[in-house]
């Protein structure tokens, strides 16, 4: 074997450079010819999964050297109607700043979104993905926070209830049929029995305590003893009186105890009438509920008619706000600077004169030019400052749109959306206005008794929303003109009456305000429709409601008044026992004091008398002796 001569190698490692060169060429070829296609497929797949129905992308062009991204013909299938596109965008174009790309940041200086079309028919129906198994959605929960506040509380059925009353109803007969014992009635009877038992007991007790014979005999003994001249006899009698007095005192103590017990029982019995009144009210409420006597608040007619719609609009806005929040993070407080571990050294930060957030779309022009025959709207507007770090750029995200959608008959559409997460107190606000839109088959009330709404009308509406520090403020102004009402009712009286009222309402104006924490919004809705309907109906229906309520009241009165009066009488009688016992107590107390006084007087008087007696006897003896 011949030995191959060792070839001297140069300073460059060609055996490494060549494979790297090949790899770079392959990468270049891939990004030049295949990457766009793969990116297009990726966008289609991800968007389809997100939308739940087919999303198509015409083409995608990217350029590494120019830092640009261009997407053409984006078609998003409407999940509900797969033959239509929910939205179709002719062209989306972004151009990134190289200066930012070198910092691994994506800043779009200027972008354009052209020719937006809504509800345009597709060439082929889009594929709809099978629905996912139902699971509680966070978004549904967010919407329910608002909807639950008006659900059940306000409904268009208020007019249906009114018609039921106008119809006459059969509640009158039903009320007459009540034979069962009322809750209040049963309790009154229990109370009467209780008061009667107590009264009997206390009558007897007072009778026995009212025996003053011992007191009287004691008084007689005192009278007698005060006349007694013999001191020894007087003292003997006093001893007996003192014993009698202690017995009387015992009797007084018994009276006092009894008075206390009676007082507490009187207190309990005195609360009976109040309890009865409360039970009567409860019985009335229960009966009204059973016979469906509607509690119609005509003052809130506008709320009943429009609150549901208003709440739905706010709920939708909340949903989109929650969705937007996922992509536009709120400002976080500065993280505390912790002392770094020794081996990591200290990292210095110099003033930032030029820096970019990770993603920043500075401005995107939105435009769409449509004609009468197409599904495009005449839309123009701009999207400003979409970024991952709003705090860094200190500017709010803004979407400003103006346009007309001829095919949908939407004219003068204005949208101004602001999401400001650049401060400590994030703000979300939206202003949506439509100068003219068609209203078709908008029903306010739909029940067996009444169908009432608008078959056709022209509307204009403006909604202003502001959400800051967990407080939402929503203002809604809407106006409906060229009204074509739809009115059907089982009650001819109701129909005639409503027709008369509606003839005088050529225009419906609704002004709404909802304010407060999102979980407890304060709704206030005013509408001339509500006011006029209220005034007209409340005259008729108000009388009927009052009639029904009076009927129930009188029925209850008839059942309860007699036992209630009996109870009152008994209670009064029972309270008299207390007074009797008190006067007895006063009598004993007065006499006890008097007896004690007399005893003291006798004691003092008796001693003085015997001393004087002894003195006079001594004098007589000395006179007889005469020295």
């Amino acid at each position, binding site marked *: *074997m011949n*030995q*191959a001569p*060792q*070839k001297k*190698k*140069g*300073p*460059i*490692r060609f*055996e*490494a*450079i060549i494979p*790297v060169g090949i790899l770079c060429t392959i990468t270049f070829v891939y990004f030049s010819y295949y990457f766009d296609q793969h990116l297009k497929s990726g966008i289609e797949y991800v968007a389809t999964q997100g939308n739940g129905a087919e999303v198509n992308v015409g083409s995608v062009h990217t350029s590494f050297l120019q830092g640009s991204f261009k997407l053409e013909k984006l078609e998003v299938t409407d999940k509900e109607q797969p033959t239509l596109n929910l939205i179709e965008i002719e062209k989306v174009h972004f151009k990134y700043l190289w*200066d930012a790309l*070198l*910092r691994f940041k994506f800043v779009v200086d200027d972008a354009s979104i052209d020719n937006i079309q809504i509800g345009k028919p597709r060439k082929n129906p889009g594929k709809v993905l099978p629905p996912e198994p139902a699971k509680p959605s966070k978004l549904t929960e967010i919407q329910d926070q608002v909807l639950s506040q008006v659900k059940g509380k306000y409904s268009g059925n208020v007019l249906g209830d009114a018609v039921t009353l106008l119809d006459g109803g059969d509640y009158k007969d039903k009320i007459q049929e009540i034979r069962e014992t009322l809750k209040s009635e049963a309790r009154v009877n229990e109370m009467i029995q209780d008061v009667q038992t107590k009264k009997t007991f206390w009558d007897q007790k007072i009778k026995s305590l009212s025996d003053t014979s011992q007191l009287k005999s004691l008084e007689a003994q005192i009278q007698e003893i005060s006349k007694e001249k013999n001191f020894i006899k007087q003292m003997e009698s006093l001893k007996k009186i003192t014993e009698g007095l202690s017995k009387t005192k015992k009797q007084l103590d018994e009276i006092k105890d009894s008075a206390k017990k009676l007082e507490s029982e009187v207190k309990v019995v005195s609360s009976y009438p109040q309890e009865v009144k409360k039970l009567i009210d409860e019985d009335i409420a229960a009966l009204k509920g059973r016979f469906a006597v509607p509690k119609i608040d005509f003052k809130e007619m506008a709320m009943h008619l429009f609150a549901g719609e208003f709440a739905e609009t706010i709920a939708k806005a909340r949903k989109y706000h929650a969705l937007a929040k996922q992509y536009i993070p709120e400002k976080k407080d500065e993280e505390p600077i912790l002392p770094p571990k*020794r*081996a*990591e*050294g*200290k*990292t*210095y*930060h*110099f*003033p*930032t*004169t*030029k*820096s970019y957030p990770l993603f920043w779309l500075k401005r995107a022009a939105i435009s769409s030019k449509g004609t009468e025959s197409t599904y495009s709207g005449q839309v123009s507007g701009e999207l400003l400052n979409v970024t991952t770090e709003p705090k860094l750029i200190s500017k709010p995200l803004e979407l400003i749109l103006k346009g007309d959608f001829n095919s949908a008959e939407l004219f003068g559409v204005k949208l101004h959306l602001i999401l400001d997460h650049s401060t400590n107190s994030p703000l979300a606000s939206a202003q949506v206005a439509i100068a003219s839109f068609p209203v078709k088959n908008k029903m306010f009330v739909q029940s067996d008794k009444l169908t009432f709404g608008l078959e056709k009308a022209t509307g204009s509406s403006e909604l202003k929303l502001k959400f800051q520090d967990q407080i939402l403020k929503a203002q809604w102004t809407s106006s409906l003109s060229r009204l074509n009402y739809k009115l059907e009712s089982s009650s001819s009286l109701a129909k005639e009456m409503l027709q008369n009222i509606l003839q005088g309402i050529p225009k419906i104006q609704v002004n709404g305000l909802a304010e407060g924490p999102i979980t407890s919004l304060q709704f206030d809705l005013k509408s001339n429709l509500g006011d006029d309907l209220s005034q007209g109906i409340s005259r008729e229906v108000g009388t009927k409601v009052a009639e029904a309520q009076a009927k129930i009241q009188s029925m209850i009165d008839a059942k309860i008044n007699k036992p209630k009066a009996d109870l009152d009488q008994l209670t009064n009688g029972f309270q008299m026992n207390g007074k009797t016992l008190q006067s007895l107590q006063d009598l004993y107390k007065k006499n006890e004091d008097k007896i004690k006084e007399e005893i003291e007087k006798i004691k003092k008087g008796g001693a003085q008398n015997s001393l004087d007696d002894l003195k006079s006897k001594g004098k007589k003896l000395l006179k007889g002796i005469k020295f």
Partner: protein
Amino acid sequence: MSLILKQIFAFLKLLNSDTGQISLSLGVTCGFILGMTPVLSLQSLVVFLLLFFFRIQIGAAFVTAFFFKFIAYLLDPAFHSIGTMVLENKDLAPLFTTLYNMPIIPYTRFNNSIVMGSGILTFLLSPLIFILSYKMIMKYREVILARFKETKLWKAVEATKFYQWYYKYDQYNWK
């Protein structure tokens, strides 16, 4: 892993041969830079690219980098002091502010005290390391290797059939 082992074996072989002093010395210098730099940064990446595209002994770089990592750990406080002194120098603040706001440059992590301190030291010491390693390799070959080749043990190994076979095998250019 096998590539690294291959490079280390190549380093040992080259060290014990009569050629490649410059390649070895450059490898040691690059290893010194890699070993002293605390984390993967833009300058480390540049050194890797140099190793990859130029005929610098990669094995020598890896072995030296491993060795200098231990020394760098002990020198961290010194690096920190030097880095802090430089970064806190008010006269240099405008320069650092400009660099901080330039594209790409911040990926060098120059604003970290240890990166700055070790960077300055390695920049200043790398020519010295190159010269020193060159001289040490030459000295090693002249003194230690020559003496080893004169030992009876080596002569006995050289006389074996296996060694002769391996020597012939190694003479061919298989690459």
